[in-house]
């Protein structure tokens, strides 16, 4: 049992951006939880039991009941602990719709475009993939203005839904920048986002759960080696 008498467990892994989303949300709400770290490459009994449909992390287990899918968990946290901490989604229906729209955009379009860079087989394909990513960042820069209304976060004065949806990838993105030389958040191209990146990473709700860039680089290299080994073993 945790401090507040609530039983909150999070099944996850330190490197997963989707897990980081949940940790940020719980931190914002000041909710204590037990972090149950999955071993890389092995799915625990508890994971298979609590997420039989997808068998993936993160899974939030609240008073024994599992909630799955990261942004659904974030909304759940916002609703259950509505009286604690800042609102992750504002009370205004249109604002909420705007934030949900952009969170979907990040998940359905923008982050897949980032993944496409590493999957590109030719230099041409890679260049095209990079172009897509930057086109998306331009849209996100505009979204930042629309959602944040001149304040420091997509959520306004405090971290909100879209901040969490996009910001969770920053460790991964910084690692990719180091390994490829591509600068995603360029002051010249997307000044608002470039400043937001630093502000977000420095926030007290994020600091402790955002992996260090060097650790992510190490992890990424380990993954690359694993995939190469698996590919050549075929």
């Amino acid at each position, binding site marked *: 049992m945790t401090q507040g008498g609530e039983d909150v467990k999070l099944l996850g892994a330190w490197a997963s951006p989707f897990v980081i989303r949940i940790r940020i949300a719980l931190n914002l709400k000041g909710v204590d939880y037990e972090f149950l770290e999955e071993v890389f490459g092995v799915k625990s009994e508890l994971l298979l039991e609590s997420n039989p449909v997808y068998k993936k992390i993160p899974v939030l287990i609240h008073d024994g009941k599992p*909630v799955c*899918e990261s942004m*659904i968990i974030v909304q759940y946290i916002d609703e*259950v602990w509505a009286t604690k901490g800042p609102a992750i989604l504002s009370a205004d*229906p*249109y604002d909420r*719709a705007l934030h*949900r*729209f952009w969170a979907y955009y990040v998940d359905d379009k923008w982050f897949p475009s980032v993944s496409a860079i590493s999957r590109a087989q030719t230099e041409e394909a890679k260049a095209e993939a990079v172009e897509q990513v930057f086109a998306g960042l331009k849209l996100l820069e505009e979204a930042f203005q629309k959602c944040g209304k001149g304040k420091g976060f997509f959520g306004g004065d405090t971290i909100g839904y879209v901040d969490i949806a996009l910001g969770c990838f920053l460790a991964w993105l910084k690692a990719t920048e180091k390994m490829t030389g591509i600068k995603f958040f360029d002051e010249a191209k997307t000044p608002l986002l470039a400043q937001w990146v630093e502000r977000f990473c420095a926030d007290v709700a994020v600091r402790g759960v955002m992996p260090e860039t060097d650790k992510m680089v190490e992890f990424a290299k380990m993954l690359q080696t694993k995939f190469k080994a698996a590919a050549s073993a075929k």
Partner: protein
Amino acid sequence: MAKAELKLLGTWSSPFVLRIKWALQMKGVEYDFIEEDIQNKSPLLLKYNPVHKKVPVLVHDGKSIAESLVILEYMDETWKENPILPEDPYQRAMARFWSKFGDEKCLPSIWRVFTAQGEKIGQALVSASENLMILEGELKGKKFFNGETLGFADISLGWIVNMVILLEEILQLKMIDEQRYPSLSAWMKNFSNFPGIKDSFPPQDRMLTKYRTLREALLATRGSN
């Protein structure tokens, strides 16, 4: 005060547009329907959904909302009559989960059956069946995914009713049979019979023609490899 202006940009056949029509029907909200030509997108559509240029788009007092599930949540928060999402946060999370599962897993797997040929149909059916079995398991004992009345998850998964009947007709196979899927079969009937739902279904003969033509075109382009 003048009545708020409400427009729905959509097409006659889109299952995602249909979700919004069902929700508007359930909430008893009046609106103007603007039929879009996807091959020739209107300036209005490009203005109201510049990011995706897709339907449905709800325009409420000049403010546009895109992405069908986002629109459904907006509607429930704006028009409190006949709520489609439950009040309990855990039940809400479940409703959202099953809607997402429908869109991300069921729909593509059923689409793969539709676009398959020959023996590949059988393979695609196995995959689709796995997903449908999961839905069957979730429904067990319930009239609707939402419980006694139709809700968010039912509206989100409602495309199954239309789509499956179409595919079964075009491919001449049975995807959801009563023996293997007693709950899902019952749900399909209960859903269709819910007030206002069936009237919104696009005309079956027009859908059959459209999807038959679509399948022939898809197979023809593939066949030329």
